[in-house]
């Protein structure tokens, strides 16, 4: 059975499991303080600390949940690249779910004006939250002198322009051979966003990252 078949089986299994209310079991968990960083042209970089729990389940899916708001920040599928021994460092590769409407479905629109909100934790949902943060939580340089006056609004956060460049958890074992700790890194490239900071629509760039360190239980 190749990986595609395995994943398809996993998806089918996940559906069946959901239907029969059998929950996936956690295999690896990590809780710690994460820093979310957002950059946007003409804005001061915003760093937000948050307590986050990452859970890797035996059905091949993972969830990153913000403990303060029980908000699913990101979710997707994972793969563990083991080390040579049980105490060797290992890496978990993660792929955030990407939601996109099908052209073959009726009455569905993609971002920036989706008719169906993307599921919580998908990359699309994450970027929707980034857009809201840029508009409401960042300090940006606005044109306040000459009309047309600027406003802190995003016309279009060009979600397909965002590429995930790093999405891993690297785990090491302490000298006692038992205690494990990890560093989670989620980082995007600089995507495009059209904004109205100067009063006219202008193309800028933005990026988002989430870094976290903490104890790992596997």
């Amino acid at each position, binding site marked *: 059975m190749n990986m595609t078949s395995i994943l398809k089986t996993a998806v089918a299994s996940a559906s069946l499991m959901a239907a029969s209310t059998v929950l996936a079991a956690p295999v690896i968990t990590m809780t710690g303080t994460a820093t979310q960083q957002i950059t946007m042209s003409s804005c001061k970089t915003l760093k937000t600390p948050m307590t986050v729990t990452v859970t890797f389940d035996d059905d091949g899916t993972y969830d990153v949940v913000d403990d303060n708001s029980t908000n699913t920040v990101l979710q997707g599928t994972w793969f563990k690249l083991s080390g040579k021994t049980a105490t060797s460092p290992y890496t978990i590769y993660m*792929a955030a779910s990407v939601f996109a409407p099908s*052209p*073959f479905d009726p009455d*569905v*629109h993609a971002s920036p004006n989706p008719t169906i909100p993307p599921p919580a934790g998908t990359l699309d949902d994450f970027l929707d939250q980034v857009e809201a943060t840029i508009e409401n939580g960042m300090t940006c340089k606005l044109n306040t002198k000459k009309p047309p006056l600027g406003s802190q609004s995003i016309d279009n956060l060009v979600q397909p*322009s965002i590429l*995930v460049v790093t999405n891993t958890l690297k785990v090491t074992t302490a000298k006692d051979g038992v205690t494990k700790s990890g560093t989670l890194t989620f980082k995007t490239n600089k995507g495009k966003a059209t904004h109205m900071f100067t009063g006219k629509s202008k193309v800028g760039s933005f990026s988002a990252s989430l870094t976290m360190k903490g104890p790992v239980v596997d």
Partner: protein
Amino acid sequence: MKKTTVFTLAAVCGAFALALPDWKKPLNATYPNEQYKLINAEMTQTLAVSGCKTLKIKKTKTGPSTFNTIALFDNGSYALYRYATGDTSGTPDTIVTGSWSKVPGKGSDTFYLSINSASMVDLLGDLDDAGLANCKTNPKLAAMTQLDFLVPTALVKKNTLVFNIKKNTATGTLQITGQQHNDQKGSLNAMGKFSVKATLKGGTWEEL
């Protein structure tokens, strides 16, 4: 059941689904319309798998061509219909779907494309089949049975369609890198790398 048969069956079912009215569909449902389309674009593709000779599908004067079509719909979604080299059946090997967004420029417009998760699984499944067949053409790897592109390790490096306003032509580029499992040395699940680069050129660009 072979993958080809599965795709053929899916295509036949799809054709039936299109031909037969779906009585469950609401009468007032709005289906997306095509907004932009690149038809019969010629694809060149490079698929590199560590330990194997790179698979290249090139445009040649005498060789078979791979024609592909990409349609961008007004609901923000797109469909890329990929055909096998020399395929004239009209049944695509893979349909890649995702969302698109246009960023206008002075001399060219850039259409950024994302690939939804289900499509990525299908695409990599299709590519690792092609990669395995290519690896096995090396007599030393003829017994190879495993080449699995590991979906969570895949990173999209580029996925754009650039429309040159003056020339009225469009060029598509897709680059993906990641890691794979193989049994090149006899034991299963040995790690290696893979990368794919595909370009779409030529064809006809339509704004609908």
